[in-house]
């Protein structure tokens, strides 16, 4: 059974059809790419999957339940985490606090226990702190733990956003243009990191990216979106030779 299954989703803003007839299926542990020309509706799809928008019609299932119409925080708790196209960290919080904020719903820390410093709460706090540090370490940010997120360089901010998403213990991670604004060397590191994350954390990853080379290299399957509709699904080799995809991209030097 698929981990994530979106069927026939549609969304309009006023008269504008942003997405229609959208379908997508992701299995556990898969690495899938979502590509398409600018304005094709890729980020809108992410917003539908994470509950920022509710589809006008269609159904999104995650695991064995429908998540259509759930609030963003509920969907995250089901196991879907995301990053944002324009980075949305908590700018004045430190790197460490950014990750810790995302642990909130997984801990059974009580408020009374916290303020009374009960032994149970203290142990739980130490456990959470260790876990956050491990996550920072996983994205090589442990030495920047006390730096406010806004002072981190761009590339590190992107990595911190991934660590923060991982802190919610997702089964599916949505990455919105993780390589945007990074240099070629960072891009290669990032690719390796994404693969490693998938294997080490046992995640399924859905990734939006403009860099074709990166997508073709790491994704097992690719969904191509144009004008809010899926125009092709397949493995990288199939996508490369698909006439519809070539047409959609014609004029774009990818």
């Amino acid at each position, binding site marked *: 059974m698929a981990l994530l299954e979106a069927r026939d989703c549609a969304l309009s803003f006023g008269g504008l059809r942003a997405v229609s007839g959208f379908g997508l299926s992701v299995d556990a542990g898969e690495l899938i790419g979502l590509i398409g020309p600018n304005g094709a509706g890729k980020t809108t799809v992410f917003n539908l999957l*994470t509950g*920022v928008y509710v589809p006008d019609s269609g159904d999104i299932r995650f695991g064995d339940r429908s998540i259509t119409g759930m*609030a*963003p*925080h509920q969907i*995250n*708790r089901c196991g879907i*985490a*995301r990053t*944002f196209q324009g980075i*949305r*960290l*908590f*700018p*004045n*919080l430190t790197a460490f*606090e*950014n990750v*810790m*904020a*995302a*642990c*909130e*719903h*997984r*801990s059974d*820390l009580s*408020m009374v226990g*916290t*303020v*009374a*410093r*009960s*032994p149970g709460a*203290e142990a*739980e*706090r130490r456990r*959470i*702190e260790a876990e956050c540090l491990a996550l920072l370490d996983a994205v090589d940010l442990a030495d920047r733990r006390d730096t406010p997120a806004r002072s981190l360089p761009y590339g590190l901010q992107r990595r911190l956003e991934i660590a*923060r*998403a991982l*802190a*919610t213990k997702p089964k599916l991670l949505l990455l919105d243009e993780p390589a945007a604004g990074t240099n070629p060397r960072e891009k290669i590191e990032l690719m390796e990191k994404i693969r490693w994350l998938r294997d080490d954390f046992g995640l399924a990853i859905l990734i939006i990216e403009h860099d074709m080379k990166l997508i073709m290299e790491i994704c097992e399957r690719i969904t191509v979106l144009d004008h809010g509709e899926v125009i092709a699904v397949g493995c990288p080799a199939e996508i490369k030779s698909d006439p519809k995809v070539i047409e959609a991209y014609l004029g774009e030097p990818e």
Partner: protein
Amino acid sequence: MPSLVRANAALLIGVALMWPLGAALPAVLNAYYLQIIVYIGINIILAVSLNLINGVTGQFSLGHAGFMAIGAYASAAVTMFAWPSGLPGGLWAALLAGGAAAAVAGLIIGIPTLRLRGDYLAIATLGFGEIIRVVIVNTESVGGARGLFGIPSLASFASVYACALICVVLLWRLVYSPKGIPLAAIREDEMAAAAMGIDTTRLKILAFMTGSFWAGVAGGLFAHFIGYIHTNSFTFLKSIEIVTMVVLGGMGSFSGAILAAIALTVLPELLRFGAEYRMIIYSILLIVMMLTRPRGLLGNREITTWLSSKLATAR
């Protein structure tokens, strides 16, 4: 249990020390200074609790004085009408009742209004503050427009500062814990916080209730210190005064809120020599302070980090 005592030993000792300190103070300070010091303590509770709502969670509330009023009236009602006279502990029961009443009011008000963002929340809370006031004025059983007389003077330096210490320490522990960081995340970016699984509405209401609780306690202390309460003590201007403390101190900074609470309580008294120019100077100082330190006295940092960064640049 023993480990719980050990973890809180310093706090408990600190609280216990307030009584001998309170007994010693009248020997060195006259009644006027003592009164100002007590007002400072009450204002610290108000500023720190509003800091949780405004500064940490980023929910702009303009109705803090309303919750203070609820606490004042509810606690006064407990000691005057409910608690058997002669039985000790009346003040504490009253403070808990006042805090609880304010927290419940915070829950009732928070559920509909915390959906609103930014300035709309401010106006809605302002509205509620005024409604609470008008309702009290029209409730004859608590004195109505005449105010409530004859509240037993149970609060003193010791009880006020014991409460202030407990309030500051507990809220500090909360804010700088895994339970409190998500509150700051809501302030920073509500949408991103929700995407990270944070139930923003629930936490906002929780912060609002906690802040309201302490405003209620402060109101209870106020009522039992001066012995007479009137809605004129809890107007929109009082709410504004508390907001000013939070912003002037530096949003989200405990030490900033405490410093500002002290400064803004002492300042009008220091300016007494100027008699009729007093409040004019006060308002000019407020404007000048904001113009020169637009992020508040300490920015959003605590005094410890602020000092260490000053030292680092000096070196």
